[in-house]
């Protein structure tokens, strides 16, 4: 395994020859420091960030939690680039879960975070890692200069070698590591000293991901694969009725109180084969057994009376209709999200006004690896270890510490590969649950949620109702814009609702909130999914009404920004936009923004009018994601989001009846399979030299609008409720 658990960095550090560049507590993000400085810090955690061994092996730690998106490789690669390291001799290890050392500064707050969410990894670590790499290189050069008695400024590097061009002398990084010293204060690096784009050897090149070889032979270690001596297994049954309190899903605050088990067939289940015990949790029961199959059998046999939960009686379909009433209610509480210009005036003087309504259902992450964790608490109860695949190891550590009544520092977190995350694995709720069980049974525990549990206890992309209105002037230009989204989930509901890529002068955008007790969470671009669908369908509706080409309409009448024009122009070229399509096929377009990136996409569809099944034949997406660090991995990531988007738009639907989720496994929560794969999928990055922006979620939000717009061109009808299941398509065709 390339990823080793980081048991004691201090001891590793002490026992090695070579140079270890460390980092320690700082208030300005990831900063390298010398070993001497690090050692001088009393009681500070000391960790080598970069280690150069005398044999030339370079170890770089990665804060890029890996769920398939490639960050585990791309973050060390950025550092290796500026360090000018020989990539073939670089090993990658996970960083410990200490955000004060390894975190980036929260773009929305003051704390340091390690959350690999919202397509943040590369864009938020990029500058820090480049500076750190450049500092290491500078120290290596300084050591060579001193040995040769020359001016450091005259020296150059090639991968892992310092060269004196005047003499042809060479010293490898490994050779330097054997004699070199690190100054107490590391040399400062000016951003002007960083490599020019043309000098990159790794960034922008297609360097293979490091995790791939372990994922073709079964050796990649996910948390579900961890086995500890004396470990027992747990399977949980939670209150089927959700009981989320407003805001409690926030990482570190995930205690779901109430909805507790009141009584259950304790003796009967305890008597079952292999069952060791039943642990009562705040919102469920855990059956602990010698093997997982016995724990699960016990869990399946539980008969529980549950206390009342907040979502009791909640029905998702009814709630959507309630949202319509909330929207119509002039006294409903609203949160203003955007207020620009004179909206009233724009509508009062409008030549024509447009209006449209859209709905969307709940969505489930359906990551392939059901939620699980392994926890060991020591005999004294003052130290715990957790093995988990987490998008936010810092939050998991916090959640486990809280569940055990420990300080964060008393919990060691061991990162594992994630079998998918998509926003679900950044909260540590199941790790905290496992910790409670482990503490109670006083043995190491592996907790695995069954797939049924994973769905029933899902934390969903919220459902929504949306109303959009627009005012146009005599030339057809959009002069006024109103968008109201109604639903649960506070800021989950509003991502992607603003339209900075359009130049509409007068805007009013608002949210009207409710709280149902249903657990909700981030979900690959979350609000973008339904907001972008509504916005782009609405814009298309106006273009069709005015008889203007949809791209032209966006340019001329929505005031598309130069960046938006560029991605549309690239899209038009890629998709041969003006070309006629085969009989029975049409093309639809949409734009989406996410995490600083902008994408313009198109789909070509056909329809089986008898069954209502939409078939997507081709997909194109032009992306402005700034400088792309790993183009091949980034392209794969965008393709992944396109499929994720198609799956959610065509198939996926969670419904809730009497507060409980109605779907239970992949037979009734349909995700896309190979037979629905488009024949062609083309992703192109616009060549720009701006900072890297997020790419993990730029591929899915445009799908809803693009498919619905293509459907309109095919049938003259508009799909207004996500997902576009065959039943809904047939209903729409009848209208």
């Amino acid at each position, binding site marked *: 395994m390339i990823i080793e658990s980081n048991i004691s960095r201090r001891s590793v550090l002490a026992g090695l020859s070579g140079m270890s560049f460390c980092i320690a507590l700082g208030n300005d993000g990831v900063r390298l420091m010398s070993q001497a400085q690090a050692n001088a810090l009393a009681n500070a955690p000391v960790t080598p960030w970069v280690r150069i061994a005398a044999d030339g092996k370079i170890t770089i730690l990665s804060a890029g939690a*890996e*769920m*398939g*998106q490639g960050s585990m490789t791309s973050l060390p690669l950025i550092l290796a680039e500026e360090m000018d390291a020989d990539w073939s001799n670089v090993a990658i290890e996970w960083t410990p879960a200490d955000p004060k050392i390894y975190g980036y500064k929260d773009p929305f707050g003051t704390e340091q975070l390690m959350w690999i969410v919202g397509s943040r990894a590369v864009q938020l670590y990029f500058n820090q890692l480049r500076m750190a790499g450049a500092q290491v290189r500078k120290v290596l050069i300084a050591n060579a200069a001193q040995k040769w008695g020359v001016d450091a400024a005259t020296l150059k590097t090639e991968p892992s070698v310092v060269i004196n061009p005047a003499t042809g002398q060479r010293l490898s990084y490994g050779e330097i590591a054997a004699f070199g010293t690190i100054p107490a204060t590391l040399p400062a690096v000016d951003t002007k000293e960083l490599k020019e784009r043309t000098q990159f050897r790794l960034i922008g090149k297609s360097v*293979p*991901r490091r*995790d*791939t*070889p*372990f*994922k*073709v*032979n*079964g*050796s*990649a*270690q*996910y948390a*579900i*694969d961890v*086995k500890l001596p004396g470990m027992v*297994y747990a399977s949980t049954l939670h209150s089927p009725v959700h009981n989320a309190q407003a805001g409690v899903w926030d990482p570190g605050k995930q205690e779901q109180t109430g909805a507790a088990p009141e009584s259950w067939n304790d003796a009967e289940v305890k008597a079952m*084969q292999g069952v060791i015990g039943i642990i009562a949790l705040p919102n469920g029961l855990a059956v602990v057994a010698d*093997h*997982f*199959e016995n724990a*699960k059998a016990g869990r399946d046999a539980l008969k529980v009376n549950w206390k009342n939960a907040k979502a009791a009686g909640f029905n998702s379909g009814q709630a959507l209709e309630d949202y319509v009433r909330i929207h119509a209610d002039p006294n409903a509480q609203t949160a203003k999200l955007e207020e620009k210009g004179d909206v009233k005036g724009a509508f009062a003087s409008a030549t024509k006004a447009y209006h449209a309504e859209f709905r969307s259902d709940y969505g489930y992450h*359906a*990551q*392939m*690896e*059901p939620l699980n964790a392994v926890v060991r608490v020591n005999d004294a109860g003052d130290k715990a270890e957790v093995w988990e695949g987490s998008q936010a190891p810092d939050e998991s550590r916090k959640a486990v510490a809280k569940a055990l009544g420990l300080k964060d520092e008393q919990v060691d977190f061991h990162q594992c*590969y*994630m*079998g*998918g*995350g998509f926003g679900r694995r950044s909260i540590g709720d199941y790790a905290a649950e496992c910790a409670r069980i482990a503490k109670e049974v006083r043995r190491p525990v592996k907790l*695995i949620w*069954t*797939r*049924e549990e994973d769905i029933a206890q899902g934390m969903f992309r919220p459902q929504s109702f949306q109303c959009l209105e627009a005012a146009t002037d005599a030339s057809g230009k959009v002069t006024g814009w109103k968008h109201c989204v109604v639903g649960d989930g506070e800021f989950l509901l509003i991502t992607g609702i603003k339209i900075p890529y359009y130049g509409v002068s007068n805007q009013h955008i608002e949210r009207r909130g409710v709280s149902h007790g249903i657990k909700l969470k981030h979900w690959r671009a979350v609000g973008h999914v339904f907001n972008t669908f509504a916005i782009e369908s609405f814009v298309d509706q106006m273009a069709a009404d005015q008889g203007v080409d949809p791209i032209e309409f966006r340019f001329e009448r929505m005031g598309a920004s130069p960046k938006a024009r560029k991605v549309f122009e690239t899209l038009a070229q890629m998709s041969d936009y003006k070309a006629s399509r085969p009989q029975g096929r049409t093309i639809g377009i949409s734009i989406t923004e996410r995490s600083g990136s902008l994408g313009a996409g198109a789909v070509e569809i056909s329809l089986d009018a008898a069954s209502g099944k939409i078939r997507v034949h081709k997909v194109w997406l032009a992306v402005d994601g700034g400088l792309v660090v790993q183009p*091949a991995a980034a392209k*794969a*990531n965008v*393709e*992944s*989001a396109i*499929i*994720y988007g198609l*799956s959610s738009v065509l198939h996926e639907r969670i419904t809730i009846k009497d507060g409980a989720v109605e779907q239970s*496994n*992949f*037979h009734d929560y349909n*995700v*896309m*399979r*190979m*037979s629905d*794969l488009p024949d062609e*999928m083309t992703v192109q990055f616009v060549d720009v030299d701006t900072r890297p922006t997020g790419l993990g979620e730029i591929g899915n939000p445009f799908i809803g609008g693009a498919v619905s717009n293509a459907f309109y061109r095919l049938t003259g009808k508009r799909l207004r409720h996500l997902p576009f299941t065959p039943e809904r398509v047939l209903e729409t065709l009848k209208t």
Partner: protein
Amino acid sequence: MVSFTLNNRQVSVEADPKTPLLWAIRDHVGLTGTKYGCGAGLCGACTIHIDGTAQRACQIDTGSVAGKKVMTIEGLSPDSSHPLQKAWIMEEVPQCGYCQSGQIMKAAELLARNAKPTRADIITHMDGNICRCGTYHRIIAAIERASREG
């Protein structure tokens, strides 16, 4: 106690014969390349071979494989040298990777029966295996490559 051949090795498992083979392989024997995804035969993450036929290990009683030959991803090749494994690396198929053992085992069954499958053959054969990261097009490309390059 159930005895069977696992990756050309004789094993005896101290599990109830009704235990799903998935857990016997993963927890009792300790080969974790075979994954739990749904426990209901719906996703294919636990696909293994029993006497050369791809099966969902979560749906097979351990007792039913007594005396049979079971192969998991760990037994496909000793060094990732199976043409499919090489092709999987060349096409950079895996993302999260969790479903890929099952995908490869399902694909291995196809190539063993049909050395030159068409795209339609591949899709028909592989349609039961879910990949949530959506690597389907790369899976197809890798199977085609393995078929071509052997």
